[in-house]
């Protein structure tokens, strides 16, 4: 079959695809039988590693006193930057991030060295005995201070379209302001870990809890002075990742491999929770300063925004995160004239990194805050202002980066969610409640989301797979995507089972491995199933075509009429079992193994002008949330959320539902209870679940209705016309934050906008209430 064709063009019966199979490891998870890297038995001689972390935010490393630590029982060696035989480079894009500090310490918690010992306890105890001589220099913790000093980790990016300045200046109404939003820790339940096992010659096997095995492979090879072919990286599953193991896993894996090379022993490196939260990156906090010009109906005529991202101490992925923020300011709205500038501000805090949404949520949040404020000041309903600005359904409007908005589903999801949520009636009920209650106030808000799918950088949009059919008809599946809980392995196995017409349990899912599929991209950008599903489809389809020819010969028919279904290969009344056909292929010396490769079509991007078509397609969703706040303490709670989410034609609606619910709750955490807090020395003081509060089960809205937009195949040729789902629903949680602002606004009868940043902790809500009360007292 044509290499460019995808299964949407086949006569697909959807026997396996589209069904809500449970996660392939579900039974093993609940029985405690699923093996994570820390559960792998220790090979004889295994050593354990504990990190030595900087207690200082900024300074020159003058010396490391390891005497006491080296004398501690069980200690094998201590690893410092000077021990690295190859390149001390861990950064994914630039060359600015070491595995171990050479001279300049740039944040509290930065890894300076590592103690290698016979037990984890000995390593930890010894690490506490190392003393660091650091000459401190003045640190910078504040993005606005970094901005004033022009201190960045990555070149500034600018996205313009039309003449924003002129549009704003000639607009009937102008507004300017500032919005600040905090970062977020991934809080994957399994902390960062790697287990490096030296083999013969230069061979190094690294089990790494990583979303990006190829990047680990490249950097381990560089650090060890080896070639990529010397290093195998494997990962069967991660205990959560959310972007936190896209680039950050490399550092942990690199140190484990360096220790293994130096000692010649298997080395396990697991970061304890506190060390993990101190030493590894998080979601970028942003400050956005904006100016908009609007007409009296709320139509945005021009918008200018400076987005200051807290990059942390190095660039890491800040460049592309800022790009995605700039390309998601528009959300669902056609902005005719914009001037967006994105700064990756350098601060002496841990480097921020990929996190589900990857800048998209921050860009969108800013625009939604603007709409919330401007609509109230214009005296119009926020949803009416939204509707005034939506991209038209088929009006040929393009985004600020010049991508045509096709297959626009904004109005579909918005109308549906407003109906499901019974918006009009509840708006009235809530207004009545607010008039009758002194202390508690409710709020209601709707939020639409349009999210672009593909890595912004076209090169990354490729994937490979490897499929074997054994002579007994069982199938081995491998691809470059990693399993972090999202169910990717299950979805891709469904694709392969569909192609072969065999039951899902006949597909053996195997650990992601760089020696099976090379040169892979990170499992990120929601693209896992689009890319790897398509690559696996192609490998399976290649084998199926060969098998069909053998079957046709056996059945005496043309191969075009041979069908694969329910474990049988049939033509009319004649059939042969899939297993028997596999055996026959072997007997006839026909290859039953194939690789598959997929490169996303149509996309292109000019990173100097920020123009092009970065996204293969858009995914849409909308949410309505209702909250209640306590105006005496700021405590708050989400009471109900309704979601309508576009999933194209889902590969697995049960897994998609899990992604929608989980992403929403995670987004709610980002915007409400999760707060990163540093003390005046730059030490993060929220480094464990006792101080960093992610949502618990009671925080989930007691009424939580999710609908997957039905029967809406992707207009683009994705695998079985499905759509990406990992990130988009996270942004739906902005509806909760907007509802909190609405609740505060209710004190003014909805007239005044709340001055509420994110996260909306009880403290911020109470302070916004107090400010509103002061403002009302002043105007009355």
């Amino acid at each position, binding site marked *: 079959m044509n290499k460019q064709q995808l299964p949407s063009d086949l006569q697909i019966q959807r026997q396996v695809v589209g069904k809500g199979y449970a996660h392939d490891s579900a039974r093993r998870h*609940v029985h405690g039988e699923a093996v994570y890297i820390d559960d792998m038995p220790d090979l004889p001689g295994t050593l354990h590693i504990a990190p030595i972390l900087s207690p200082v935010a900024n300074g020159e490393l003058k010396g490391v006193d390891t005497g006491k630590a080296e004398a501690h029982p069980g200690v094998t060696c201590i690893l410092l930057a000077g021990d690295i035989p190859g390149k001390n480079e861990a950064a994914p894009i630039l060359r600015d991030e070491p595995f171990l500090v050479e001279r300049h310490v740039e944040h509290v918690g930065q890894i300076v060295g590592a103690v290698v010992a016979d037990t984890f306890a000995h390593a930890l105890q010894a690490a506490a005995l190392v003393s660091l001589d650091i000459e401190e220099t003045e640190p910078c913790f504040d993005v606005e201070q970094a901005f004033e000093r022009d201190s960045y980790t990555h070149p500034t990016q600018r996205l313009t379209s039309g003449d924003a300045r002129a549009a704003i200046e000639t607009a009937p109404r102008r507004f300017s302001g500032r919005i600040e939003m905090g970062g977020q820790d991934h809080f994957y*339940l*399994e902390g960062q870990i790697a287990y490096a096992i030296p083999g013969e010659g230069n061979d190094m096997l690294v089990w790494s809890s990583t979303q990006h095995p190829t990047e680990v492979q490249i950097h381990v090879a560089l650090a060890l002075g080896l070639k990529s072919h010397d290093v195998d990286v494997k990962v069967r*599953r991660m205990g959560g990742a959310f972007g936190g193991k896209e680039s950050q896993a490399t550092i942990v894996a690199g140190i484990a491999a360096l220790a293994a090379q130096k000692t010649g022993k298997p080395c396990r490196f697991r970061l304890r929770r506190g060390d993990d939260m101190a030493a590894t990156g998080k979601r970028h906090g942003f400050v956005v300063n904006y100016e908009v010009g609007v007409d009296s109906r709320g139509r945005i005529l021009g918008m200018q925004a400076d987005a200051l991202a807290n990059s942390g101490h190095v660039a890491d992925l800040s460049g592309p995160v800022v790009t995605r923020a700039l390309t998601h300011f528009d959300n669902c709205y056609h902005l005719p004239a914009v001037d967006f500038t994105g700064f990756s501000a350098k601060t002496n805090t841990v480097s921020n990194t990929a996190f589900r949404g990857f800048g998209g949520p921050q860009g969108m949040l800013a625009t939604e805050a603007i709409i919330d404020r401007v609509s109230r000041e214009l005296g119009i309903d926020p949803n009416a202002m939204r509707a005034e600005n939506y991209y038209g359904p088929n009006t040929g409007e393009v985004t600020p980066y010049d991508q045509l908005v096709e297959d626009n589903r904004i109005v579909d999801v918005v109308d549906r969610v407003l109906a499901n949520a019974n918006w009009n009636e509840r708006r009235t009920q809530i207004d009545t409640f607010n008039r009758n209650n002194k202390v508690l106030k409710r709020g209601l808000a709707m939020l639409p989301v349009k999210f672009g799918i593909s890595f912004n950088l076209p090169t990354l949009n490729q994937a490979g797979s490897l499929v074997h059919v054994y002579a007994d008809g069982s199938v081995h599946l491998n691809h470059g995507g990693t399993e*972090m809980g999202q169910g990717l392995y299950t979805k891709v196995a469904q694709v392969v089972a569909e192609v072969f017409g065999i039951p899902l349990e006949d597909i053996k899912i195997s650990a992601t491995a760089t020696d099976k599929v090379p040169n892979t991209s990170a499992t990120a950008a929601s693209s896992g199933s689009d890319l790897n599903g398509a690559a696996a489809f192609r490998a399976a389809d290649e084998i199926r075509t060969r098998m069909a020819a053998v079957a046709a010969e056996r059945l005496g028919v043309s191969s075009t009429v041979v069908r694969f279904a329910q474990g049988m290969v049939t033509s009319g009344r004649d059939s042969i079992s899939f297993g028997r056909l596999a055996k026959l292929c072997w007997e006839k010396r026909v290859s039953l193994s194939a690789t598959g490769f997929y490169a996303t079509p149509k996309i292109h991007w000019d990173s100097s002008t920020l123009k092009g078509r970065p996204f293969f397609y858009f995914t849409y969703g909308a949410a309505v949330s209702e909250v209640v706040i306590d105006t005496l303490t700021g*405590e708050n709670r989400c009471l109900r959320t309704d979601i309508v989410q576009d999933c194209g034609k889902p590969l697995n609606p049960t897994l998609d539902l899990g992604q929608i619910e*989980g992403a929403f709750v995670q987004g709610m955490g980002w915007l409400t209870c999760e707060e990163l807090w540093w003390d005046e020395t730059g030490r993060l*003081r929220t480094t464990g679940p006792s101080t960093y509060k992610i949502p618990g089960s009671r925080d*989930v809205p007691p009424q939580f209705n999710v609908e997957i937009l039905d029967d809406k195949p992707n207009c683009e040729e994705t695998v079985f016309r499905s759509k990406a789902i990992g990130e988009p629903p996270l942004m739906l949680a902005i509806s909760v934050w907007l509802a909190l602002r609405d609740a505060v606004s209710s004190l003014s009868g909805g007239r005044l906008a709340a001055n509420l940043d994110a996260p909306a902790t009880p403290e911020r809500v109470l302070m916004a209430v107090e400010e509103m009360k002061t403002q009302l007292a002043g105007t009355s």
Partner: protein
Amino acid sequence: MKRSIQFVLNGKATKADCRPDMTVLEWLRGEALLRGTKEGCAEGDCGACSVLLMRRNVEQQGEWLPANSCILLMGQLEGTALMTVEGLAAEAEDGHAVQRQMAENGSSQCGFCTPGIAVSLAGLLQRKEQPNEAQIHDALAGNLCRCTGYRPIVEAAQSAANSAAQIPLPTPEGPAAEIGDTDCSFYLPGTLDELLSLLADHPEATLLAGGTDIVLDVAHARARWPKTILTRHVAELRKIEASATTLTFGGAVTWEEALPHLERHWPSFATLVRRFGSTQIRSMGTIAGNLGTASPIGDGAPALLVLGAYLILAGPSGEREMPLDEFFLDYRKSALDKGEIIRAICVPLPTPDLTFRVYKVSKRYDQDISTVCGAFALKVDGETIVNARVAYGGMAAIPKRCIKAEAALEGERLDGPSLTAAKKAIEEAFSPMSDMRGSATYRSLAAANLLERFALDIDGETVEVMAL
């Protein structure tokens, strides 16, 4: 002398020869090679390490309760029984009912929190055959999931409710009086006299109740405790006794054991205690431990302060009584003398003229440490306040009464002028700190506003977001 630790593990009599000050999690994942139990945080907050521990009540009847194995010491297993996720899976064909439901309904994504959640929910179904949604949330308060959004997990508990078989309780021999060896001695006294003489003989020993606070040193930094004395098995300290006027909790009574009594006499206190740590923490943590650490944010203290609680301290020179508001001296410093323990906490029973509420403000409703905790108790004659007690946690180096606010209320009605004066007194009396839980400004404002909430609450206004 070397005496191994004896207990029942997943139905089998087991001897462990490790140090008694090793955490159960480290032993399970190491020597026992039972790696279904995970380490997520090593501070008793995420629940990935949850196990079921057999706890005996005063009548020596056993019950399976969830515990965090990351902050549970091997010595605490002596003479009892432990069930891990692997044991749970072996309870029935294809696992415990809650495991079967969870495997089918999307309760696991990454799967790392999942064993702990299965254990917690199985523990819940031991105690409540048909738990309601609030009880399921109570049971899950100590288990974090970052992937699912919890909906399927809550539903799995509901679906498993009817089909969950009770997990049998083994009958291990009671604990030995001493385990371990000369490097690491672990004492398990059975009487108060034994406990006091051990303390006199080993003044350097660590006194261990539930361990939910102090074992963090072991969990985080692998600290070693050469000598430990466990209060759990001291018969006198396990009692809960009511007289006509006073309810007395022994010094080893856990919050979970106290909860039904609090519910009966002070429902507002019980509501607070259900937010106190998690079921795992409350199953281990004691009232005496909460007070004894003299933490400024111990959630038990403000309520006990306004209820007029007093302590009975026992030591080498006998017993003495002390009002709770004299017990806290400074940050993490109490009036306990060397060799002295909290033998009992005595709380005057409510009289008909008492109006009492306690409120906690935190970033998350469940299992969070208070930013501010405020407790209020009024005795009213007609409409006149004859006695007022106002106390806060999180506002000073110790949990503390606000005498000036009390004075502003006494002899007045609880209305506009007295309330304004008392709120002003609260803002003036405290200079709270700013930290990750809240700024000083916020703490002061919220503390004063809690008094206003109290006035509106007893007037019938809906004042808490959880009420909706």
